[in-house]
């Protein structure tokens, strides 16, 4: 009996040929079954790609603030937003804390200060004007001279502030790339002047566009930075302060602990009082965001997976039809000694073939659509990550085998006598 001595490899090869034959002999039907899987895979892969891109882009936005930095702020949450009711009575941190942290923290390498000027000061909206161009989408910040070094921003042109400029409250400014485009068009901003709250400033630096963002938006690109000392002089009531604490290499946890201890001492907190400030790192912010986005992502991908399940139903449908049509053939094979396992394998391989073809085509379509979407919709990225391609192919294979199992086991369980009698 040849069936006894055959290796499983030749068995698989034979089953695969049978499957290819069957697919070839029914092109329209196979095409439609594959199309169902294509629709499912395109939906799942594209949705996954969009979610992954939004997430990575947002993560990059925070990493660009320096991965070795610890951010200290008196409120929980976004320094550009007003305080929540619970924290409304917390006092802001003081810029002077920076010196104390740098002096007393052994794991602290450097501390930079960012002072955030609110968009409306004394009932007047802050705008930046250069010639005829004026914009009110501008975030005015005071920065210490070492800010750009600590936060690691790249310059497109020009230079950071000097200590002297900060101490002398010099009227110099560094502009973000969006702000530079709004004020000076495509010309270089460095050396030009701008008017802020009735005072003229000279632009000494322009930062390079940030890579991260939320749907293409990154407010760091709209920042108008002036020296800390200048803010103290021109906007004396502003006290919203963020401290950027840069740790020595590999000592971030220690720097965190030291910062907490020092700030508690500076804020005169008793041993049983809670922190009245919040420390964070780019990682801790990203982790918090991931907790939220994981839930949203799970629901969205589950919704997308419905299409794939329906594609699987399509495969099951074709397989059931195929098994029914070939009842006589299966009966004959079983009667002349084919084993049930072989029949099962034959139909499983046929199902897997259909769905994997669909999966591969779906991934290709998704890649193409991703490129087109990224190209045409600004601020939207749908570049398909490699793991999503692999996951898509694996999912299509899994769906095919699952969907094919029931028809295949029906085929394998046929009674050869009954099957031969089938008309």
């Amino acid at each position, binding site marked *: 009996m040849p069936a006894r001595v055959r290796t499983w490899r030749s068995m698989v090869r034979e089953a695969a040929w049978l499957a290819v034959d069957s697919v070839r002999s029914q092109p*329209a*039907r196979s095409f*439609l*079954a594959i*199309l*169902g899987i294509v*629709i*499912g895979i*395109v*939906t799942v892969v594209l*949705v996954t790609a969009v979610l992954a891109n939004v997430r990575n882009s947002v993560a990059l936005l925070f990493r660009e603030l320096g991965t070795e930095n610890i951010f200290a702020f008196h409120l929980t949450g976004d320094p550009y937003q007003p305080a929540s*009711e*619970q924290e*409304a009575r917390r006092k802001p941190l003081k810029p002077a804390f920076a010196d104390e942290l740098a002096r007393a923290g052994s794991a602290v390498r450097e501390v930079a200060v960012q002072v955030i000027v609110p*968009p*409306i000061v004394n*009932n*007047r*909206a*802050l*705008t930046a004007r250069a010639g005829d161009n004026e914009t*009110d989408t501008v975030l005015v910040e005071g920065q210490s001279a070492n800010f750009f070094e600590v936060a690691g921003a790249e310059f497109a042109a020009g230079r950071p502030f000097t200590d002297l400029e900060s101490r002398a409250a010099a009227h110099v400014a560094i502009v973000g790339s969006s702000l530079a485009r709004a004020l000076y068009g495509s010309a270089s901003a460095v050396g030009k002047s701008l008017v802020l709250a009735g005072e003229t400033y000279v632009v000494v630096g322009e930062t390079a566009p940030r890579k991260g963002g939320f749907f293409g938006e990154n407010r760091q690109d709209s920042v108008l930075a002036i020296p800390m000392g200048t803010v103290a002089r021109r906007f004396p009531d502003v006290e919203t302060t963020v401290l950027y604490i840069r740790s020595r290499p590999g000592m971030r946890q220690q720097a965190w602990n030291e910062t907490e201890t020092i700030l508690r001492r500076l804020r005169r907190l008793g041993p049983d009082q809670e922190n009245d400030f919040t420390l964070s790192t780019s990682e801790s912010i990203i982790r918090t965001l991931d907790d939220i986005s994981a839930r949203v992502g799970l629901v*969205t991908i589950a*919704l*997308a997976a*419905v*299409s*794939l*399940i*329906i*594609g699987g*139903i*399509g495969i*099951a*449908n*074709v397989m*059931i*039809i195929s098994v*029914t049509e070939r009842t006589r053939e299966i009966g004959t094979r079983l009667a002349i000694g084919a084993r049930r396992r072989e029949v099962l394998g034959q139909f499983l391989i046929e199902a897997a073939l259909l769905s994997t073809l669909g999966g591969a085509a779906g991934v290709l379509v998704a890649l193409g659509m991703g490129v087109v979407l990224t190209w045409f919709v600004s601020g939207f990225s749908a570049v398909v990550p490699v793991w999503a391609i692999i996951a898509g192919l694996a999912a299509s294979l899994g769906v095919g085998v699952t969907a094919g199992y029931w028809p295949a086991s029906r085929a394998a369980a046929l009674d050869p006598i009954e099957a031969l009698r089938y008309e």
Partner: protein
Amino acid sequence: MRRSGFSSYREAIGQAARSAIANRLRTFLGGLAIAVAVATIAIVVEGLDGFARYSRLTSARAFGSDTFVVTRVVSANISRRALADKLTRNPAIRRSDVRFLDRFAAGRVVYAPLAQRSADVTAGNRTYENASVGGTSAALLEIRDLGLERGRFLSRDEEERAAQVAVIGADIASALFAGLDPLGKAVRVAGRRFEVIGVQTRQGSAGGASLDKNVWIPLQAFERLFGAPESLQVFARAPDPAGSARAEAQAVTTMRARRQLRPGAADNFDLLLPEAARGFVDRIAERAGAAAAPISIMALLAAIVVVTNTTLVSVTQRTREIGIRRALGASRRHIVSEVLAEASLIAVAGGLVGVIAAQIALAVAEEPLGLSLSLRVSTVVWSLLAAGSSGIVAGWYPARRAARVNVIAAIRLE
């Protein structure tokens, strides 16, 4: 012999049904695909709607659909420059403005001033941190749905003599009095003693802010505690729901008279209308819908492909039968309508099952999610319409193939 259109359709549907029933398994799978897709879409639609309705219900407690607010500045949806201009131009709203509004309300509008801030509230050694303390008048009861569980709201007399009385929210009652009856007991707000005269029922949260941590005290008592607020908000409502447009006009005219604005001059106060307050919730639901809609449409598309395949197989297997019937005089149209009927039958049956499954899923999810979810008649109707038209779309290609069957070749087929 010419048959009437109706009996011809009935026959087509009968044939289609027989064909569908004869091939139970594939009919089942085709219908299942549609059922899954329709159920998904219906659940997404009703889920989003349920969420939007829940948010509207809770925000209606804070801001009823016929309530509006006269305020110094509404800051939403305007540019930074325009906001700064308004802040400079619009004077603060004070108690005297509210008295003026009241005097010329002419029974068409009810006004209640409101000043709010957060403060700790204590009773004995228990503290509730950051309660939302609101200074207001007795009229607020006629404007907002305050849901008093026990006791009563502030009275006009208490308001006038700045009585030290308070109505407290459910969270505060349970945190400070833990099961005891708070009525008649004392709470301290910013160190001063207030007698509890009313307790609110649980209200839920609106736009992420809890409505159960309110402490309502007379406005004059509030001003004694915290000083006069920078500007008051004036909540307003027409006692007759049909008169809300007239009430808004009345409020604007009265305020303009109070501020002695000349005709043509811009208002130096803002009106916060219910549409603007509701916009936020609707925008969120809209965005979620914008993402969910194309994804669930893809499911329907995949299901259409499955039904197409089912019908195509049915046509292929009956090629001989179709050929013979064509030879015996059946028209192309007849064959086409029969195939379309088969596809639609599968799809509509699937749609029906999907709608029922969606209803069951929603009923099961209702309790743990705390939303009120159910299928609206309109959803059922358009779900079935969507299923039916999916059937037509799915049947189109197989029907064309059936109509083009070569009669001679089909009969020769073995």
